């Protein structure tokens, strides 16, 4: 029984990875016509990926999804909008500030900014710039989840807020320094980490299903959309202040 469940999970994970294997094989064999370097390492790595992915999905079903929904229900039952909003902000801020992808992108952005002569090349000012970037992204993700939860409580239609956000992004693009725009646009995509997304999705759906008159499908989704929109605006704002 357990073995068949494990086999099924492994098979699903393998199906998920099959496209990548096919693409790489096709390009190596037919287009580039070069042998794969370190074949053994690659196969070992691929096996790790399959095992890791199946464990991850199993863990989602057992751990992250239930806790996200339980907390959303409990907070909604408690009826305190204040604590719900505090929780939303803290969830967004704390999960983003330590996000490895963001740390990497921020330090890379600092190097590019200093090589472009925008900030002092000294290490202190580099670190300060990267830290400021990380803080503005983390703050904006916290705020985004907060606004998103607010929207679920009030039942505001999502598209007005998002389109409003788009207009703001375009306006900021006009006034922001050219060097920050590429990084700002990318910052929207990298903020939502693999552990945050399931938790935030469970929070939204759980909240929408425990508030009367909200539909989980229409109102439960949309939190991640805010979390990828607001950082763009904030990073451009940060660039505007720093490079002014």
């Amino acid at each position: 029984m357990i073995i068949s469940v494990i086999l099924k999970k492994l098979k699903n994970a393998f199906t998920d990875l099959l496209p990548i294997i096919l693409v790489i094989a096709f390009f190596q064999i037919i287009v580039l016509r070069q042998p794969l370097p370190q074949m053994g390492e690659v196969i070992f790595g691929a096996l790790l990926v399959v095992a890791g992915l199946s464990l991850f999905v199993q863990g989602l079903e057992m751990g992250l999804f239930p806790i996200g929904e339980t907390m959303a229900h409990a907070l909604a039952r408690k009826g305190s909008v204040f604590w719900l909003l505090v929780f939303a902000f803290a969830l967004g801020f704390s999960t983003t500030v330590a996000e490895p992808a963001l740390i990497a992108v921020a330090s890379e952005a600092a190097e590019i900014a200093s090589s472009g002569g925008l900030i002092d090349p000294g290490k202190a000012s580099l670190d300060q710039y990267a830290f400021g970037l990380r803080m503005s992204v983390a703050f904006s993700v916290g705020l985004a989840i907060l606004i998103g939860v607010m929207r679920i409580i009030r039942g505001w239609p999502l598209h007005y807020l998002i389109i409003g956000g788009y207009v703001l992004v375009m306006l900021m693009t006009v006034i922001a320094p050219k060097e920050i725009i590429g990084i700002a646009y990318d910052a929207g995509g990298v903020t939502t980490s693999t552990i945050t997304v399931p938790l935030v999705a469970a929070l939204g759906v759980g909240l929408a299903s425990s508030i009367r008159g909200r539909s989980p499908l229409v109102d439960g989704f949309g939190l991640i959309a805010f979390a990828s929109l607001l950082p763009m605006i904030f990073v451009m704002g940060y660039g505007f202040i720093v490079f002014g």
Partner: protein
Amino acid sequence: MEFIYSFSKILLATCIDVLPIILLIAGFQLLVLRQPIPHLSRLIVGGVYVVIGLALFLAGLEKALFPLGKIMAAQLSDPVFIYGTEAIVTVSDWKAYGWVYLFAAMIGFATTIAEPSLIAVAYKASEVSAGTISQWGLRITVAIGVAFGISLGTFRIITGTPLYLYIFVGYMIVIVQTIFAPKSIIPLAYDSGGVTTSTVTVPLVAALGLGLAATVPGRNPALDGFGLIAFASLCPIITVMGYAQLMHWFTKRKIKLMEKSNAL
């Protein structure tokens, strides 16, 4: 031995990643809600699975996929491969990069299918919609969007056209679609833009972008290397809404045809 070292390093990094979430949840349960957590043991086992699974996944990626992806991105954008000569080319010809566009599209598609965040959101969406939105339907639609987005993004890097023009046009399309798309799909479509780009896609795609910007004549990695991720988060919104509109239209037509045949 070396592997055990690198794996424990990744495991530690994942734990640090999870730590704020654990503190937040524990703090809220104990201080604000003041309730014991239901099914605690199941939760802990699940949480351990998530951390170990993610660490294994990342270790495997680092060992297998990332080096491979980087080598391939470098080989494909190598001027010798593209122009077939050793001579230094000063002006880029966007038509010569056919394989790069194809590689960008295919790797975008393939990595999106394997993206854990998208798997999680697709799972929730199918649960919430009671199966109307199928997991694979959503994942493939999003993957097609990412494929198109990254392919377009490489085209932008090669031609050196400004990023904001593309994004502006993309926003316009999204706004027009929002007016016509079935209301129930809109939040999910907006969300699918953000979830596509995480663990798997970002490092591979960033390597491709920076590699291209470094080898295409006349491009500056600092200015042109970024932006692929922005495309990969915008295009899925368009394809998911487009797919929903298409399905909506088909169902409507079917109903109309049935009414017609009933009338006869």
